[in-house]
């Protein structure tokens, strides 16, 4: 019987060999695939079970991680959730991450290559690994001012330091509370998420950079004016400014806002046309310049670019291949021109910074778990969309807009403010969006802002950029300048 016993023992060995092979297959060969399977909650546990780094604004942790008693060991909390919701985004067991939580994830969870040494130390010393802290460029006063000023209105506000590109404020309304999304109860999170999705205010969208882009209306006249100045016009150049302008090739007459006259005569200086935001003058100017030049100017300001701050910014759009009528309408920010508030703020910031556009950024510093600074963002030029001279002339023109034109509501006593209003037709029944973009002080800019209030906000159809959006911009600027 020994022969068959030996044979069976070999069979038993083969059975075990198959188990060695299958274990290796699962734990080694297929492991990367299994670990990244979307249904594998372990990856989530691994992710959520780390002591995630804080997000810091003005020395305060706006997002932090505290120990919890549940399976994850840690719970993400947001000190002033809704105020910073657009920036931090949410961090959900079920729905993943958005905002800075997404963009800076590998620093926050400590998996960045930069933290390899720190991880090794932790491994040896037995300390639980901890993620890096992210310090934002946000100025808490400006953020709070923007939040309060927008009130219950739908819209967004962005503020940039024109000399560096640092984003000082970024508010989107309505907002949500990321604390609700950070709950570890999947039922709660699902209910919250569904409610937020069904909310017609789309609170999950950060309107400042990544909402449905808006028609800019008259704030786009800054781009048209910049293109004109770069093309040889000056602020004193006389431009045609009729009461109505029949769009080329159509039977449509373009009126001025409210049907008013821009000037008693036929022409007016470019600076006056901007000051009172004369539609016919800029429509004709647009046709005179031609689509190509305005498009080129818009692109130099950043239109069409995918920008990461490091949150992804929806590219703003200036349409191509238009006929003359469309070009005329695009020149005043209607037709198919679409912008993000950040893009509008970038236009103002470039004008404020003597023609040099700085790359906008949100992360100031990355701090190691021991709070030492790992990296600091160095301001970086995005480009030079306009010359210094063009910038100076545009600044003058914008200063007169606030001093004496449509943007009086943005005046700050003792300080020259440069701004531009916009009231963007949305087409159809809805009221126009109220826009205002500005920078101040005009002679030594510290802040550039852009504000949009959807459908005129609480003022509704009566709203204009000057009436609704300009005061908000003023409050944001005051928060930064007067401190």
């Amino acid at each position, binding site marked *: *019987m020994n022969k068959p016993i030996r044979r*069976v023992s070999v069979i038993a060995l083969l059975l075990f060999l198959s188990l060695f092979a299958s274990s290796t297959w699962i734990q080694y060969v297929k492991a990367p695939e299994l670990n990244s399977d979307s249904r594998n909650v372990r990856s989530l546990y691994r992710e959520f079970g780390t002591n995630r780094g804080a997000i810091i604004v003005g020395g305060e942790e706006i997002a932090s991680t505290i120990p919890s008693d549940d399976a994850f060991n840690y719970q993400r909390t947001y000190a002033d959730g809704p105020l910073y919701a657009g920036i931090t985004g949410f961090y959900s067991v079920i729905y993943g991450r958005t905002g800075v939580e997404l963009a800076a994830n590998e620093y926050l969870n400590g998996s960045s290559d930069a933290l390899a040494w720190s991880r090794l130390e932790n491994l040896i010393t037995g300390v639980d690994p901890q993620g890096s802290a992210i310090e934002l460029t946000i100025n808490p006063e400006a953020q709070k001012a923007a939040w309060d000023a927008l009130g219950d209105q739908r819209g967004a506000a962005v503020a940039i330091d024109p000399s560096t590109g640092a984003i000082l404020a970024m508010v989107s309304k309505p907002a949500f509370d990321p604390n609700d999304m950070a709950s570890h109860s999947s039922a709660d999170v699902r209910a919250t998420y569904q409610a937020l999705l069904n909310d017609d205010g789309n609170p999950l969208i950060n309107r400042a950079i990544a909402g449905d882009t808006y028609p800019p209306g008259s704030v786009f006249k800054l781009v048209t004016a910049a293109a004109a100045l770069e093309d040889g016009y000056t602020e004193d150049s006389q431009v045609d400014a009729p009461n109505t302008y029949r769009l080329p090739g159509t039977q449509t007459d373009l009126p001025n806002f409210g049907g008013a006259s821009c000037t008693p005569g036929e022409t007016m200086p470019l600076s006056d046309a901007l000051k009172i935001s004369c539609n016919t003058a800029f429509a004709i100017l647009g046709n005179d310049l031609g689509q190509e030049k305005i498009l080129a100017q818009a692109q130099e300001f950043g239109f069409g670019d995918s920008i990461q701050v490091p949150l992804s910014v929806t590219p703003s759009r200036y349409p191509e291949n238009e006929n003359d009528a469309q070009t005329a309408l695009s020149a005043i920010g209607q037709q198919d021109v679409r912008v993000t508030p950040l893009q509008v703020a970038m236009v103002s910031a470039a004008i404020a910074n003597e023609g040099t556009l700085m790359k906008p950024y949100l992360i100031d510093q990355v701090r190691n778990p021991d709070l030492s600074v790992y990296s600091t963002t160095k301001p970086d030029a995005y480009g030079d969309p306009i010359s210094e001279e063009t910038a100076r002339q545009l600044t003058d023109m914008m200063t007169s807009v606030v001093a004496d034109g449509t943007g009086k509501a943005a005046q700050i006593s003792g300080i020259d403010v440069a701004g531009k209003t916009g009231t963007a037709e949305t087409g159809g029944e809805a009221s126009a969006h109220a826009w205002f973009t500005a920078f101040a002080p005009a002679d030594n800019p510290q802040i550039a802002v852009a504000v949009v209030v959807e459908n005129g906000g609480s003022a509704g159809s009566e709203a204009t950029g000057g009436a609704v959006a300009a005061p908000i911009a003023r409050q944001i600027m005051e928060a930064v300048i007067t401190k």
Partner: protein
Amino acid sequence: MSIDTPQVRTRRGSELFLLACGLGIGAMAYAIIGFALDDSIPAEFFTFIATMSVLGLLLHAVIRKAAPFADPLIMPIAFALNNVGLAMIFRISRAMDSDLATKQLGWTAVSIVACAVVVFFVKDHRILRRYTYVTMLSALVLAMLPLVPFLGREINGAQIWIHIGPFSLQPAEFSKILLAVFFAGYLVENRDRLALAGPKIAGIQLPRMRDFGPIILVWVTSIVILVMQRDLGTSLLIFGLFVAMLYIATERISWIVIGFLMFSVGVVAALSQFTHVQSRFDAWLHALDNEVFNAEFGGSGQLVRGMYGMASGGLFGTGLGEGRPTIVPFSYSDFIFASLGEELGLTGIFAILLLYVLFVQRGFRVALGTRDGFGKLLASGLAFVIAWQMFVVIGGVTRVIPLTGLTTPFMAYGGSSLLANWVIVAILLRISDNARRPSPLPLRGATGSEDDGTRRRSAVINDANVQAVDPHDQPEQNTEHFQWMNQLDNAGTQVIQRRDVISAQEAPATTDAQPVAPGGESGRPTTAPTPHAAPSFPSARSAQSQGSPRTSPDLPAVPQPEQDHTPPRYSRREDSE
């Protein structure tokens, strides 16, 4: 005549040392878990150490007393596996806030004591042969017990549990031992009929129809278990065990072919009739499909979660206490292997699998080393059933075969399984002790005595004949030998064998006349002029050719297979005579 009991090393010292190693592994695992979970030695640590030390030493002491020549590896391996399993269950029960670990420690105590009791009271494994048909009956009854109303309970779709008061039992775990005893007893008596009689078709020796009876019975049993209890695992376990033992007894491939054909028929029929079997196959073949993964019943969710767990362990594991094994349902029983894979990594489960390999191979060594056919069949059957159960359960967890519900021997949570497998340890210890124990009987001299002379020599022969001589040539003679041997094994228990004894005593003379080339079958170089092969023992020579120097009962067995190359110490003494 004075008898010098030869010096065969008992190797109990090695056993004690390995036992301490196993205890050390378990203690370290407990401590690591404690530090991982709450930075301190767990309160249960000392209870665990104390209980396991007492149990290990108790069993060791009993073995020293009652089975001093038992294999020194089998018990420590089972002990180590039991310890690691306990630690894992402790870790999981902490995460689940349950008292599984305490209960399992209790079951371990019961099981190891049971093992000691069996080793102590069952002085000779051949006693079990007396109960061949009793064990069959009780195995069948046990297997069917869960179907009894009020007694059985359906858990997770399979009706494999019985409940008596507060206790629940998985009787199938015990039926596997009983069936192994029955198969060994039945096959050792009938192996020749099964092997040799019957028509030969296409080069395959087919068995006679009337020999089919018991096989049909086992087949029906496993199909009934499959159908009525919806327990593919036990069904597979029983049938696999039977086919393997049938093959060992008869050496007929045809039995394996017939066995698997019959089982396949049953499985295919079950597949077409029962949705739960279908879904098991679906979950196996299409485990990662979203639809199957998310299926509410019978999906692959558990299987795939186990795979996720193993994958997250990678090569070195998360470390004990650092993973999340509780995500997988039944992480402490059916899926304990996945839990181990997660926290100990591929390295850890390789080590564990190697322990099982070692255990099983030691079991087969015991089978090779023992003298009687019943012991050979029983030991190899029990060794195989452990391997086969590991394959069925781990193969299910790692997607080699469809997932069935069986427990991982020695490690998974569950009293029935632990108890049954420790009884297997006891039986293997007993058989190995008998195999290695130097014979207390005179080495030679009493040649005229039927008791130790001729009988023992002829006992040696029968393997020789089976192996070396083509059984086709001398079917009758062989049959006689086997029957005679049966009679030897349980002399006095079966009246009809009186006659066989006489014929058997005469038979060796003829068969022994055919010396077989040394190392012919096994290729072992040790065989030819071994010290045993005294001229006056022609039968011993042919036995040696089988590569099993221990088959001569009147000579002390060589302690370990590894030592086959070393002439045993007593050999010179014999030679000098």
